[in-house]
């Protein structure tokens, strides 16, 4: 197990290397020039030429990439062209906000989604099932920027219960609901169909034939088996939630990585873009690793060598 984990962690290195190369090439090959964006209209052509030279943007691409990697392996991810701040500092200042929101949304989505999925599966084709699946359909269909605004208008403006911008745990409630709703809907549908699959299997009939109580059959035997694919989806959803946080953070003005990412791309701030992509890739890789390891906990048949 330990050996497996170590192997997986070592494998992260080539993945990040590949991601950094892809991010570097893409950000430099798409049209758009950070210096032109930065200078806007108040600068003269001389200012433009000087700044490009100073930032090393006139060097061949391979030289620029080599310089980037050389510094990155030493833990220096460069300085933002625009803010002149170290990129890693900027990311770390904003990441806690995004992580908090993502984890809250992920936990909420998992708890709500799985509970509703189990409820729907055990009351198949009843009114409860219909209601839950209708909710799931709505949850999947409503785009976050729209549902977020609706929640703001209702709970922030009309009822005045919760803050619209601001910080603190109360300001976390609406964004969490907005971000969690689509994921909860996906998980509810997933859990329901997975449960129904397992409910139809022979060992369930055997368990029932043994005279086990329905509760034990459902929770100990069916749910545990049904959760394996659901956990995979939770892992994938976590990545999607990190991405979805970009929009939700904009709607609720949360100081996370979302807005930072958009601005970095708009401004062609190369060091920022590369830093964010590398950071996001690393998180994705580690979340996948965590998901893989969780299989072993849920399904004792899976062992890593």
């Amino acid at each position, binding site marked *: 197990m330990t050996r497996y984990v170590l192997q997986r962690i070592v494998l992260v290195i080539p993945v990040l290397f590949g991601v950094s190369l892809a991010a570097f090439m893409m950000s430099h090959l*798409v*049209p*758009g*020039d*950070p210096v*032109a*964006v*930065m*200078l*806007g*209209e*108040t*600068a*003269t*052509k001389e*200012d*433009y030429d*000087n*700044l490009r030279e*100073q930032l090393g943007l006139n060097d061949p691409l391979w030289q620029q990439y080599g310089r980037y990697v050389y510094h990155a392996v030493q833990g220096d991810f460069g*300085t933002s062209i*625009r*803010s*002149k*701040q170290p990129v890693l500092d*900027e990311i770390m*200042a*904003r990441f806690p*906000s995004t992580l908090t929101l993502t984890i809250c949304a992920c936990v909420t989505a998992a708890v709500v989604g799985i509970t509703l999925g189990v409820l729907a599966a055990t009351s198949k084709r009843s009114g409860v099932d219909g209601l839950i699946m209708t909710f799931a359909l709505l949850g999947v269909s409503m785009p976050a*920027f729209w549902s977020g*605004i609706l929640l*703001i*208008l209702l709970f*922030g*403006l009309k009822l*005045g219960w919760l*803050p*619209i*911008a*601001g*910080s603190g745990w109360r300001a976390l409630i609406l964004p969490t609901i907005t971000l969690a709703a689509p994921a909860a809907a996906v998980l509810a549908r997933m859990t329901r169909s997975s449960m129904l699959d397992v409910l139809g299997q022979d060992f369930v009939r055997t368990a029932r034939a043994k005279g086990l109580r329905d509760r034990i059959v459902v929770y100990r035997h069916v749910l545990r088996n049904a959760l394996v694919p659901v956990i995979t989806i939770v892992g994938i959803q976590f990545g999607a939630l990190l991405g979805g946080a970009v929009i939700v953070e*904009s*709607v*609720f*003005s*949360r*100081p*996370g990585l979302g*807005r*930072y990412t958009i*601005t970095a791309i*708009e*401004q*062609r701030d190369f060091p920022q873009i590369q830093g964010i992509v590398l950071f996001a890739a690393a998180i994705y890789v580690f979340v996948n690793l965590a998901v893989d390891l969780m299989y072993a906990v849920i399904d004792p048949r899976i062992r890593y060598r």
Partner: protein
Amino acid sequence: MNINQEFTRRFGLKVAGTIGAIAATGSLTSVAWAEPIGETADAGEASVGGELIVRTVELGDTMDPAKTGSAQVSSTLRLVGDTLIAKDYDGNFVPWIAESWDISEDGLTWTFKIREGVTFHDGTPLDATAVKFTFDRILDPATQAVTAAGLVGPMTSTEAPDATTFSFTLSEPFAPLLQFLTSSNLSIVSPTAVESMGDDFGRKPILSGAFMFDEWREGDRVVLKRNPDYAWAPEYMHQDPAGAFIETITFQSITEDASAVAAFEAGEIQQLSLPATDISRFEGTEDYWIVTYERKGIITLAFNVNVTPFDDPALRKVLMGAVNKDDVLDAAVEGYGFPAYSFLSPGIFGYWDGMKDYAPAYDPDGVIAALAELGWTDTDGDGIVDKDGVKLSFTALNLPNDSYGRAAQIVQAQFSDVGVEMVIQQMEFATVLEQVAAESHQAVFMGYTYQDPDIAYLIFDSSQAGAGINLSAVRDPELDALIKEGRSATDPDARAAVYETMQKYVNDQGLFVPLWYDSYYVAFQKSVRNANFHPDSYTVYYDAFID
């Protein structure tokens, strides 16, 4: 001062023009510049304390006045920093850190007498040495003071012979400099802090203004605290010399307009630049103070004069008459603004009033006839005019901005009415700039905001073609000569005459179709008292208090 912000801030640009306050009934009542917002008989006593939360879209790049390229930061720095010269509500240049100044006859040497007793927020004295340090730092290419370096123009050297005398030398006369010296990008910085803090100076600048920088919370807010030692505001700004009243001013970043409007209506924030789509709803209420002002600058459709079909000046000029600007204005910003006829807007010095009649009027039938005279007729009946087998069709680049998008569609329909096909290609700001720099575009929608007619240098001068700024890619010695004359004319009347000629010339050359300039609306909660709005489009909070 920056097209950069055109993109990021959309509506709430740093702009100015004439100002009016909207009376509670919703009708527009013009008031004098200096009349404070919310000054009524029932206003409470001014006392020190309270917090004012102002909505901002983004916090900006860096708070270092020399290095920032952000209009939002320039606006925030108005509160934190002091400049050599200030401009009062009537547009007069008045003393601030400089008690007086003298410009040599040839316009090349400027000497300032520096006020005594001014201290920075770190307690160190602001003297001529600090002023010299500030300007030397801007002139040093290593600083990368892009915006600020543009403002000081042809400045070559500085001197501080004693603690109260500062002077600099120019390589040629530079008429816009007096205006630019009032720009917060040229705020005097604490040399001690700059040297000890390095790049951190951009996150906690040490200046000498009425508010001190307290906190930059990444992506969230910028917090300013009252400077208790402040006693050197220009008289027009502040009736009571002993500091400001408001204890804390917070600039809260809210990126989405809809969220910002909701937060304002819920009372979470006290000041908001209204999105055009919400103006009419707010105008009808009596719940807020609303201030309006005009953009200094215009939005335009610029033609690249080096590529077909726009390499024909006669065709360019004819096409100017195909656009009904009132319709464009209605669609773009719901009519909150004015049609533009010149490359300058009326708020900018040198604007010539005759442009409205001088510029080609909207006349689709006339355009069709004129096109036919130039040989452009619809020979194949497809609705698009052609000449020698080539259709009159072009692509216009546009920014991903809602009001620009609507404007472009109207212009497209109007061109279509006269048989001209305009394809709209929407791109990100960075991509548009690159295409313009490469001069690979045919036409482009773009807006600017600038305090001085010297914007002409940046958008028309030959030297600027190929840098992403000269939108028409024009290289015209005659125009260059006019621009040079306008930059160096120090006599205001002579300078205005140069710009009158230039506005006619730009029109005659058909370099672009001026479309509109916006009216901006700023809403304040009724609890905000005695704030002032400056013609250069920023709020003055020295006398303001929270009731």
